[in-house]
């Protein structure tokens, strides 16, 4: 009697399993799981081949922006108190003494992305400014990121731009006049913010 009961239970259990296994719900879950598994495998393979070495990309871009000398060391920016609306991401020293500062401004037309610039300062004078990363409107905001516009900062003393941020009193208003572009005002302001932040960093951290 107990033997028959156990066989019955076993058969019932088997039938439940069989039913569950061939049910629509199980099939749906299995298909979705299988697709997800294949998708994960595909993405992990693609990720392996498309991983971006941000540090290498940054160095490569710096090499393109400043060709006069090679980078010899990186400055420690940890603990540096950033100004409002801007962040100093990296700072390097080149073999000729030039300081290459990677400065990001949160002020931009595409504020979510911001504007990141390379600002090269040599002997206290801005040597060059170049765009590293931005997502401004092509043909509109990007006009304030091309070399023609950015070259207005070349030859300006870092001190003059830094004082705009460090000392806000009118007596310290510098003589330098920064031109904004009509139709690209927000980008122009973003560029100025990034350059001023770089100049301030230079005065506070490098000159001292």
């Amino acid at each position: 009697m107990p033997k028959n009961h156990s066989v019955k239970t076993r058969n019932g259990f088997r039938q439940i399993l069989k039913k569950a296994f061939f049910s629509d719900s199980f099939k749906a879950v299995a298909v979705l799981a299988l697709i997800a598994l294949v998708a994960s495998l595909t993405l992990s393979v693609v990720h392996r081949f498309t991983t971006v070495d941000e540090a290498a990309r940054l160095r490569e871009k710096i090499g393109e922006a400043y060709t006069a000398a090679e980078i010899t060391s990186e400055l420690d920016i940890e603990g540096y108190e950033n100004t409002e609306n801007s962040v100093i991401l990296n700072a390097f020293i080149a073999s000729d003494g030039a300081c290459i500062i990677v400065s990001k401004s949160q002020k931009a037309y595409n504020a979510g992305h911001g504007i990141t610039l390379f600002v090269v300062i040599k002997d206290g004078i801005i040597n060059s400014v170049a765009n590293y990363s931005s997502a401004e409107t092509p043909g509109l905001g990007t006009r304030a990121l091309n070399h023609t516009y950015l070259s207005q900062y070349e030859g300006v003393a870092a001190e003059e731009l830094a004082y705009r941020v460090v000392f806000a009193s009118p007596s310290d208003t510098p003589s330098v006049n920064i031109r904004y572009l009509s139709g690209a005002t927000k980008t122009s302001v973003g560029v100025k913010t990034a350059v001023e932040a770089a100049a301030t960093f230079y005065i506070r951290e490098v000159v001292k």
Partner: protein
Amino acid sequence: MKNKLRLTIEPFTNGIAKNNATFRLMLGTCPTLAVTTAAMNGLTMGLATTFVLLCSNFIISLLRNVIPGKVRIPAYILIIATFVTVVDMVMNKFLPELHETLGLFIPLIVVNCIIMARAESFASHNAPLPSVMDGLGVGLGFTLALTLIGLVREFLGAGAFFGIEIPVVADFAMTIFIMPAGAFLVYGFLLVLFNVAVNAFQKKKVAEAQGGQAK
């Protein structure tokens, strides 16, 4: 044989002209208006969407008898999202500047109604080859539309052609065409032109067919 060939080619040509997603079906309007500030952006966005359309149509068509109807939408989204992520990663690696410019619109291809529409209405009912042709046709039609809008907006708004400034035109550039209002204006005008051209072509074709029958 001829009929089979026609059934394979037809989805391709339909996607470009007769059923152009942007100008005829008015689908995918959000990326169309947002990314076409320059011709290159339109072209890149179009090609990225074409790749996703092509691959997702192929896979969905292959799995059309395997995917249960109850979970077909999540399954399609899973497949489409995989290809969009592939495009996103590849663009980040090889075209970082364009990737930055297009920004959020690349991941948003996942919810592009053109891709979902082709998956649901065509790929899930047809064999892989016609589905691939459909994806290619619709994708290239979308690319054509985006590039065309981008070309006009860039030319009028920035006086440039694929990023190259045109000396005299650049001096008289009208910024409004780069702005959202300009996107609607250009889209509207091109919509009219495209529909007039396609309708005229179709009428001519019908007239030719009727003439042939009369003979």
